[in-house]
Structures are given as structure tokens and as C-alpha cells.
């Protein structure tokens, strides 16, 4: 099989987007849904075939470009190409995106059944898959940036899917604007980088021997090398998309979108685009801008802990999962940040590995949450309980996902998290401490959720909750299988920072510590929430103000609101609007009024009366004569 068929992985969802979008009044729901799902199925098969060929049929994992055209020319050297770049991380991402997309498409066929905007939904979802796939196979920074914006807008459209709900509209707007702000940094970073290197091409930029890049480290601006500055700005874009502190505020609100959307976009794929971006640029970070990489590690570690703490106090099932996603992405960023290159590149491999396994169990958690919400029509975990009786299959797969994310062997999350902890352990004890602590918190908040929802007392529900239809269960089961077994993949053989196989061994010390932390977290959750108990309330009352700060997510949203409403809107925009009307425009009006006034004042001079003219003439003559007399003497 030639690699050129990979182009169809992109063309299929694009075609579905256009067809479903244009014919949304003409198609039947069934046809539109199966059209989208079927195409995604074919794309998935193609992606798996590509991966098989790439990883098992070739001896070395080189960068391949099976397809490329010039899209727009800027200068002799700078141009935007549209192409497909295959290398270990992009092939791995192709597999992840198509697989999770397919599962979510299938699931949505059941979940969204009967919705009025069913076809619109599948159209947008296909647009998203297309954009995300285009993003990971981009051959150059600008192509990546374009698809980056496109995933942003598909995310906007899908968060705002229930467009008559004001919260959904606000959430969509917030998500787009916050990421747009981050993309501003990203764009400036791209421009800076391309200005000095004269190229957008990944193959040139990420080549460690590239002379232009090496030359750039010498140029400094305000004490930092320009390259460090450029890469930090590029990372800002990644941090926005991946909801890293302090650009994370949009992700919890993004949960207003339909739950399958949250599974696909806001858990498995789009939010890890930032991680992918850093991985894509990793050689540059590693060789030429270690300071920028330190920033990645720091932000990653901070978000990891920060989000895990908040997750412990939230009560909305999807928001807990959203904070958990932030926290897990923090792991990935941290791993990249502490990684070296080549044989030191355990962190890189670990990060990609965690991205891979996380896609399965986090998508599963969201789909499980969707199954619950579908049955109960509510999101608050305090109003749920004893659901294991009503939804046995959902219960089992959800438990598997919880064990996977908590890092209990032999589930997938254990292996990838262990590699991350080992990488952190080798780099900096503080980072290791944070990561291990967060592992315990992860286990705690996941099992808090699990026990509250599936155990505890039976609640009175409006409708008796029922198990979800088969169309929703099959994808969940598939993902559950993935969450159990993907951990056994020898990931280092396939994906590493320099495309050479990397042997990663299980670090037993680290493994014991992390499993102990996880078990501790689960035990605490079990004591607190397995049966109704007063303990949690007592503890929250004891911590008082601190607890409230955490529940209110450390007031970050309020700070943003203050800046945007009070400062930008009230102190900048309004005064500008006023200034424009009352100063600049008033000046223009004043010119007109002044002209009017002057003409009114002097029009008396042209009265048409002869004696008037004669009088003025005579006065003038006398005046001139007087002046001449006096100036002569």
C-alpha cells in the first residue's frame, strides 16, 4: 500500500462535512449519521493500515511526505504548503484520532437520536475530525496553525451546539476567545521563528543540525535568546489549546457541549494538541531553548496539581472530568518538559504514551458520563447514587476507566504514568513529588465520583434510569478494552524523540510509590463516599475559606471577568467609543460649525447696499492714510 492513500483519511470527513452541511434539510437523520460514521470507519481502517505499514513494514522511522502542494506564496522562501507528514507521532495521532472519532460517532448515533440538529451535529463533528487530522499531519508550522484555528472553530460550534441555551453560547464564546488570545502568542512565535530561520517547514526546523536555528540562539532580546522567546510564545498557543494554567478557564465551561463532543474534543484529541505541538517542535526545544522547556515543565506540573485539587471539590460530573483532563495533560506537559533527547528521551516517550492511553480511558469516562446523563438528565453527582443496579454495563466500563486513570496495574494508565513519574524522578525530586501527590489525588477524585454515582443510597429519579442502547454501549466496550490492554504496548519501540527505539523499563520503586498513592486515594474515597458519611462535610467545614476558594476554582474566572469587563470594556472600549464621538468627531463637526459661523459673521459685508460699501471703502482709505502718516514720522 502506498502512503498516498493517507490523503483520503482527511478527504472523507471533509466531504461529509460539506455534504451534511449543505444538504442538512434534505437528508434523513439515519442516512446522514451513517454517512458520517461509515466514512469515519473507512478513515479509521486507512489510519490503522498506514500505522501498520509505517511501524511494521519499514525498518527506520523516517519523516515521509507522501503529499504536498503549495497553497500560498509569501516570499521566495516563505510559503504555506499543504501536505502530509508521516512520522511516529503523527501516525500515532492518526490512529488515536480516527479510532476515538469512530467510537464517538457511533455513540452519538444513539446519544443524539431525535435531536433537531442531528445532521448539523454530524457535519460539525466531521469538520472537527478533518481539522484535527490535518493538524497532526501538517508539514509546516503554518499549516498546523491553520488547522489549529479550524479545530478551534469546530470546538466553538460544537460547544455552542445548544445555541438557545445562554450558558452554552457564553461557554463557546469564552473557549474561542481564550484560545484566540493564546493563538496570538502562537502566531507571533511562528513569525519570529520564521523571520530568523526563513522557513516554516518542520523537516528543516526540527533538524538538530540546522544552521539557521543554531544561529538564532545567538540573537538575544531583553536577555533571552530570540529562539527561547519564540518557542515560549509557541508554547503559549499550546497552553491555550491544552487548557494549561492560566489559560485553562475555558475548558470546564466547554462542558456545556453535548457529552460525546466533550469526549472527543475536550478529552481525547483537541486538548492534547498543545502537547502534540511541543512534541512536534521538541528537537528545537531540547537543543536550543532549554529555558522554554523548563517553562513547559513548570506550567505542566503546576496545572497538574492545581487541577487535581479543584477536581476533588467539584460536583458536576462533567466538570470533574474536565479538571481531570487538565491534570492529565499537565502530566504530559511535565513529561515533555523534563525530557532529554535521544537516549535521555524517556519523558518524551512517556508523554506520548500517556497521550495515547489517556485518549482511551478519558474518552471512555466521558462516554460513561454521557450514558449516565442520558439516563438521568442531570449532571450533579450529589443527586446520583446506586446506579450500578440500573446501568450494570456502564458501571463496569466506568470502573475500568477509573482504575486506568488511577494508575492501578495492569490497566493502561499505570504504565504510562509510571514512565512519566520515572522521568520526573530522574529529573527533579520536586516534580516527582508533585506528580506522585497528584496521582493520589487523581485516584481520590475519580473514586469519589465513582462511589457517589454507582454506590451509595438509591435516589428517587423522575424516570427510572435504564441502561443505554447498544449503539452507545459498543463504543464504550471497545474503549474499555483499549483502557485495559494499551498499556502493554512497548511504546518506546515506536515513538521516541529521535525515532530510534528506546528501551523503557518499569521502575519498581516508582511503581510502588505511585500504586501506594493510588490505593491510598481510593481508600480515602471509599471511607468517605462508599456509604453516606458526615466525614467529607466535617473536613470541608474545618478548612473553611480554603475549601471555598478551591470550590470557586481559586477565583481565576472572577479575575478574568474583572480584567475583561471592568478594565477592557469599561476603561478602554467605552472611553474609546466616547472619545471617537465626542472628541474626534466633534472636532470635525466643529470645523463645519466654525466655517458656518464665520460665513454668517462676514456675510454682512456683502449687503449689496452702495452706501455701506462706500462707508467701508472710505474708512479703509482713511485707515491706510493714517497708517502711512504715522509710519513716515
Amino acid at each position, binding site marked *: 500500500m502506498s502512503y498516498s492513500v493517507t490523503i483520503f483519511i482527511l478527504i472523507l470527513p471533509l466531504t461529509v462535512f460539506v455534504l451534511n452541511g449543505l444538504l442538512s434539510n434534505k437528508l434523513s437523520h439515519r442516512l446522514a449519521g451513517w454517512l458520517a460514521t461509515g466514512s469515519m470507519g473507512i478513515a479509521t481502517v486507512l489510519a490503522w493500515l498506514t500505522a501498520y505499514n509505517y511501524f511494521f513494514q519499514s525498518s527506520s522511522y523516517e519523516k515521509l511526505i507522501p503529499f504536498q502542494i*503549495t*497553497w*500560498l*506564496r*509569501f*516570499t521566495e522562501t*516563505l510559503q*504555506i504548503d499543504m501536505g502530509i507528514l508521516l512520522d511516529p507521532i503523527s501516525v500515532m495521532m492518526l490512529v488515536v484520532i480516527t479510532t476515538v472519532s469512530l467510537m464517538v460517532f457511533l455513540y452519538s448515533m444513539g446519544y443524539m437520536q431525535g435531536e433537531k440538529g442531528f445532521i448539523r451535529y454530524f457535519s460539525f463533528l466531521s469538520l472537527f475530525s478533518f481539522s484535527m487530522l490535518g493538524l497532526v499531519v501538517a508539514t509546516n508550522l*503554518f499549516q498546523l*496553525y*491553520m*488547522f489549529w*484555528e*479550524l479545530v478551534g*472553530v469546530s470546538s*466553538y460550534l460544537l460547544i*455552542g451546539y445548544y*445555541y*438557545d*441555551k*445562554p450558558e452554552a*453560547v*457564553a461557554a*463557546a*464564546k469564552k473557549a*474561542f*476567545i481564550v484560545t*484566540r*488570545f493564546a*493563538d*496570538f502568542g502562537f*502566531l*507571533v512565535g511562528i*513569525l*519570529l521563528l*520564521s*523571520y530568523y530561520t526563513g522557513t516554516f517547514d518542520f523537516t528543516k526546523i526540527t533538524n538538530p543540525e540546522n544552521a539557521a536555528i543554531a544561529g538564532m540562539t545567538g540573537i538575544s532580546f531583553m536577555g533571552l535568546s530570540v529562539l527561547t522567546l519564540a518557542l515560549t510564545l509557541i508554547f503559549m498557543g499550546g497552553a491555550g489549546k491544552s487548557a494549561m494554567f492560566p489559560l485553562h478557564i475555558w475548558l470546564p465551561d466547554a462542558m456545556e457541549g453535548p457529552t460525546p463532543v466533550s469526549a472527543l474534543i475536550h478529552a481525547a484529541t483537541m486538548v492534547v494538541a498543545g502537547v502534540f505541538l511541543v512534541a512536534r517542535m521538541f528537537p528545537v526545544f531540547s537543543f536550543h531553548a532549554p529555558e522554554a522547556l523548563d517553562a513547559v515543565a513548570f506550567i505542566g506540573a503546576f496545572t497538574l496539581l492545581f487541577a487535581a485539587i479543584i477536581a476533588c471539590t467539584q460536583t458536576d460530573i462533567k466538570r470533574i472530568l474536565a479538571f481531570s483532563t487538565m491534570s492529565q495533560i499537565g502530566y504530559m506537559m511535565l513529561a515533555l518538559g523534563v525530557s532529554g533527547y535521544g537516549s535521555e528521551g524517556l519523558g518524551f516517550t512517556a508523554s506520548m504514551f500517556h497521550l495515547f492511553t489517556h485518549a482511551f480511558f478519558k474518552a471512555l469516562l466521558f462516554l460513561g458520563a454521557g450514558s449516565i446523563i442520558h439516563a438521568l438528565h442531570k449532571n450533579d453527582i450529589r443527586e446520583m447514587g446506586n446506579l450500578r443496579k440500573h446501568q450494570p454495563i456502564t458501571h463496569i466500563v466506568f470502573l475500568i476507566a477509573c482504575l486506568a486513570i488511577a494508575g492501578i496495574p495492569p490497566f493502561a494508565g499505570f504504565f504510562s504514568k509510571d514512565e512519566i513519574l520515572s522521568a520526573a524522578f530522574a529529573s527533579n525530586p520536586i516534580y516527582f513529588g508533585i506528580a506522585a501527590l497528584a496521582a493520589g489525588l487523581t485516584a481520590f477524585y475519580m473514586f469519589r465520583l465513582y462511589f457517589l454515582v454507582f454506590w451509595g443510597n438509591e435516589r428517587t429519579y423522575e424516570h427510572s434510569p435504564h441502561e443505554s442502547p447498544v449503539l452507545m454501549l459498543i463504543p464504550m466496550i471497545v474503549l474499555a478494552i483499549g483502557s485495559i490492554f494499551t498499556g502493554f504496548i512497548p511504546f518506546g519501540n515506536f515513538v521516541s524523540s529521535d525515532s530510534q527505539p528506546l528501551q523503557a523499563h518499569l521502575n519498581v520503586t516508582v511503581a510502588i510509590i505511585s500504586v501506594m498513592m493510588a490505593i491510598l486515594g481510593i481508600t480515602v474515597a471509599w471511607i468517605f463516599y462508599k456509604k453516606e458519611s458526615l466525614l467529607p462535610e466535617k473536613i470541608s467545614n474545618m478548612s473553611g475559606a480554603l475549601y471555598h476558594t478551591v470550590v470557586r476554582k481559586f477565583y481565576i474566572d472572577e479575575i478574568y471577568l474583572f480584567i475583561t469587563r471592568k478594565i*477592557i*470594556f469599561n476603561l*478602554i*472600549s*467605552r472611553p*474609546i*467609543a466616547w472619545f*471617537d464621538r465626542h472628541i*474626534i*468627531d466633534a*472636532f*470635525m*463637526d466643529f470645523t*463645519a460649525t466654525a466655517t458656518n459661523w464665520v460665513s454668517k459673521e462676514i456675510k454682512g459685508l456683502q449687503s449689496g447696499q452702495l452706501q455701506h460699501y462706500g462707508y467701508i471703502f472710505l474708512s479703509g482709505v482713511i485707515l491706510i492714510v493714517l497708517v502711512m502718516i504715522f509710519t513716515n514720522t
Partner: protein
Amino acid sequence: MLLISLIVIPALTALAVMFARNAQQVKTLSATGMSIQLIQSFYLLYEFLKERSAGNSETVLFGNRLEWYPSLHISFDYGVDGISVAMILLTSIVIFTGVFASWEVKDQAKEFFASLIILATGVFGFFISLDLFVMFLFFELAVIPMYLLIGIWGSGKKEYSAMKLTLMLMAGSALLVVGILGIYFHSDVNGSHSFNIIDLANQNFPMEMQRIFFPLTFIGFGVIGALFPFHTWSPDGHSSAPTAVSMLHAGVLMKLGGYGCLKVAIYLMPQAANEMAWIFLILTSISVIYGALGVIAQTDLKYINAYSSVSHCGLVLFALLMLNKTASNGAVLQMISHGLMTALFFALIGMLYSRTHTRIVHEMGGLMKVLPFLSVCYVIAGLASLGLPGLSGFVAEMTIFVGAFQHPDMFHRVITIIAISSIVVTAVYILRVVGGLLMGPIKNEEYNNLKDATWYERLATVTLIAAIVIIGIAPLWLSDIIMESLGVILR
């Protein structure tokens, strides 16, 4: 002949409209005339591409000279390069859709359509002229009907707005006259003065002369291109103008400014442009940011679009002043892109207004449910405006930013970063409007009875969207024909 017919057809259409017997005939005639014009423009593009690919590398194609006033060296010189072809295409698309967007004009339809088409004739003439004097005549021909169109068929404070707009543009024209005459009297082509741009471009004007006349011509054209602080005619003018007039004005007329700045001020006086660019760069970057921030506080759809036009057109002049090919290419692309999307915006605002009778954002809401077609169009226009890849705005803005950032000077790069920050502000105001206007619950019960777009409204919006999408997806051909002409202008 091809070019002459570009002004003859609209002129004849305008004349024929005056003899029409009823409103139906007026509309049919206008629509036919402008359809022919649209076809002609595409044929011109086809011929142009054919000539270029055949290796014809002359500066202007299909040119000719008709003597008019030999003693003053005024002649009707015409010819087109890639930029003019692109602008002609834009103009014919906008006037074509403008006719359909004014389908419901009833009062004095005859005079309305005739004035509208005369205005377009002026614009077409402007784009094909190579003689400064004739170019100026066409410029005025395009500006004058605006007074009548706003003053008679407008709404709100229409007399005030029409007067303000005309006076401010006239003030700009006054500077232009001085500038053009200055150029004329300093020229020496074979022992005599000249108005011909191609001849003038080979003149090496002394620096003292350029220092005086560059700013005059630049500001003269800049006024209609909404250069800060001479932009205030725009919000009032647009808010009072009828739909098609706003479309034509923001879509095409404001582009005469950018086109003139490039092809007259910068082309003829490059040294002064280089020396004084920084002053105008500061003014234009103020336009970009100030316009964008100013929008956030607006509530009237037309004001919103007028201020955002200030921001987007500011970017055009900003890019031109970078004086390099990439940025200038971006400027021309931005003129076309902004022309299309602002025409779409104004068309849609007109269509919404005719249904809801308000233009205040917070008085509407939830329109997506009752007017899905128009709402989707509005969303697309918005996304184009905030620079979504795949739509024309992205192509234009990115070309500008990349081009501007290639400037070796630190000042230029820093000011570029400031201009880039406008993409965030643009996202804020676009999404605010889209959210408030189209989404959320329906605020007014009566809106439930609204009817979605009619066939002529669909024709107008779909044509504009198609152009926006085509440029957004496949920009290379357009960028190439513009780039090739810029090689001559920015020597």
C-alpha cells in the same frame, strides 16, 4: 475595447434605467446590466491570465490612449495590471449583489438604481485609468452620487450624514487635487508635463517635492480609506445609508483609498514614502487597534460594522506602508477580502433590519431559530471577518502579518505585533454579536413569524459567500497575479 466596455455597459445600463416604465423594468434592466458586467469581468480575468501565461510581461495589458485635452496633456489612458483586474472583479461582484440586495427599494426606484450604477461606473473607470486627471474625475463621479443616495434614500439623520460624508471626502479630494497638480507640474516627460502614471513613475522627483506632495496624496486618498483621524464620516455615513449603498461604499469605495495610496502616492513618490512611512504607520496602527476596541462598545449593527471596517481598512494602509511586496500583496488581498465580507455584512444587516426593524444587537436574539439561512450567512461573514482559515480573511491577514514581519527594522516588527493583537479583539466583538444576535432564546414573540431569505436575497448572499470561500480555499492564483504587478510598483 474590453476595458472600454467595462465603463460603457454600466453607463448604458444607468441610462436605460432612466427610460424604464416601472420598478420591475428598472430591476430587470439593472440586474441584466450588472450580470453582463460580472461576466465581462470574469472574461477579463480569463484574458489577463491567458496573456500572462503566454509570456506577455508588459506592465499594463489591453491598454490604449485616447487624446482628450492635448494642450494640458490630459488623455484617457487606460490599461490594467493584476491589481486592477482583481479590484474590477471585486467591484462587479459587489455591484451585482448590491442590485439584488436593493430589490425591495420602491421609492423612486429609477433614480436610485441609476445613481447606484453611475457610482459603480465611476469605480470601474477609476480602476482602469492610467491618467491621474481622468482617474480623479472618475473618483469624483463615484463620490458624488453617494450624497444623493444617502440624502434621499437613507434613514435616520440622513441629511446630516450625507453632508458630513460628502464634505469630508471633498476635503480629501481638495488635498488630492493639490497633490496631483503638484506631481503634474514637477514632471518632465520629453520636455513637457504629464498626467500619465506610467510615464510619471519613471520620473525622479526631487526629495523636497516628494516631502510635500506624498503626504497630500496619501492623506487625500487616506480619507476615503478611513485613515485615523479622518474616519468619522464612516460610522454616520454607513448607518444612514441604504443597504446597497453601504455595501458599495464599504465594499468598494473605501478601497479606492488603498488603491490610490499604492498606485499614486507610493508608486510615484517612493523615497518620501520610505522616509515618512513611520508617521502613517503609527496612524494606521491606531486605526487598526482603536477601531477594533471601539467596536466592542457599540450596539448598533451598522456602527459595529463601520468601526470594524475602520480597523480592517486601517490594516490595508498599514500593510502598504511596509513597502514590501508580501505585505502589499496582503493589502490588496485584504481590500478584496474585506470588500466581499463587509458587503455581505451590510447586505445581511439590511435584510435583518427589513424584518425586525431594529439594528440594536440586544433587542434581537435567537434569530438562528427563525431565520436559519440568514443567520448561517451571518456566522460565515463573522468567521471570515475574524480570519478563519478557509475563508478569505485569513489569507489576507496572514499575508500582511508575514510580510510586515519580514521588515528588517525593529520598529516595524514591534508595531506589527501590536497590529496582530487586533485578531483577538476582532474575535471578541464578532462572537459577541453572533452570540447576542443569533443565539440564545428568542426575545421577541413576533419574530416567530419572520420569513427566511427570498430568492434574490439568497442569490446576493450566496454569491458573496462563494467568492469568500473560493479565495479562502485556493488563494494562490489571486495572490500570484497581484504579486506580479507589485514587482513593478515597488521597485
